[in-house]
């Protein structure tokens, strides 16, 4: 009798164990499934958004070409508007709304990878590192700057945001990957200031920094229109 009881109890317990095991298994399988389908959806969405962005950028380019054509035709009529157009173009150049090219340097930051090629937590490039470098370049007389081909204007902000570094409020840089800073200016000055900077600051633990002078660097313009909501001209 005792033995039968024992067998029944063991069997009941095994039923419970099997039951829990299966439900847990199914639970985890389901979770994986949900995760995977989510990934595929996001990829598709990313693709469509990317193509949308390209189309919109193209239309912006077309419209801007049209505007410059209008400006040219109206400027042809008199010498005075000609002068105004020149001033306008100069202002656009200053605020970063034109594609520019010229001599300068390309600074590449490559994060140090940890064991097994995985990016280490210390190898993360920080917003401050980029800001300091940009500041240094600007101080050395850089006229146009871009980080990962994102144009830096007088109104650009750069800060950490979660796993990314946000630039200009909506563009992101992946801090675990290499970051490329382009600067147009007198290349000797830029390089000299960066050399001095590298002597003074120790980034070597965090990432590798390469400075490459070049005679022909092209930087794309800042594509979004500026508008001030609060600042008004004092009359």
């Amino acid at each position, binding site marked *: 009798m*005792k033995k039968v009881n024992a067998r029944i*109890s063991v069997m*009941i*317990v*095994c039923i*419970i164990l099997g039951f829990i095991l299966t439900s*847990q298994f199914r*639970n985890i399988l389901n979770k994986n499934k949900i995760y995977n389908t989510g990934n595929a959806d996001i990829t598709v969405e990313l693709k469509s958004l990317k193509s949308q962005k390209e189309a919109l950028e193209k239309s912006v380019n077309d419209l801007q070409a049209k505007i410059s054509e209008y400006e040219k035709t109206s400027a042809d009529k008199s010498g005075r508007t000609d002068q105004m157009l020149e001033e306008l173009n100069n202002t656009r150049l200053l605020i970063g709304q034109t594609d520019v090219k010229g001599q300068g340097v390309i600074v590449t930051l490559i994060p140090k990878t940890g064991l097994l090629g995985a990016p280490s937590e210390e190898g993360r490039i920080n917003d401050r590192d980029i800001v300091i470098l940009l500041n240094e370049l600007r101080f050395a007389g850089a006229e146009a700057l871009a980080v990962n081909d994102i144009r830096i204007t007088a109104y650009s902000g750069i800060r950490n945001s979660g796993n990314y570094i946000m630039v200009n409020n909506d563009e992101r840089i992946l801090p675990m990957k290499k970051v490329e800073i382009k600067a147009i200016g007198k290349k000797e000055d830029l390089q000299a200031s960066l050399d001095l900077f590298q002597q003074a600051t120790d980034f070597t633990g965090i990432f590798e920094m390469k400075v490459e002078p070049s005679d022909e660097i092209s930087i794309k313009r800042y594509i979004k229109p500026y508008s001030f909501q609060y600042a008004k001209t004092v009359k």
Partner: protein
Amino acid sequence: MYIIFGLLAGVILGLVLKVNIPDQFSSYVSVAILACIDSVFGAVRGNLYKNFQADIFISGFFGNAILAAALAYLGDKLGVPIYLAAVLVFGGRIFDNFANIRRKLIENYKNSKSKDVI
């Protein structure tokens, strides 16, 4: 034999009933499962050594599972990975029990063989 039958019945029950364990409990359930497997191995071993007691087995089965899950939960709340303790202890004991079972089974097999020869 009845262990395998019980497990099969449980698996079928689990497939048929489709009870969903909420996501946030799944890690605790995992630790509890480990404790349960340990108890079953203990039962097999007790059976082989002829010192199996049903009441001790059942109380150990539920007690260990609940304690393991509770520890894991407490560890989560305190930010200390206490579930590691449960994993280590039960994992170690499973291997321990299995080693004992293996030894006993092989001994039994050898004994029966030598009897045959004689």
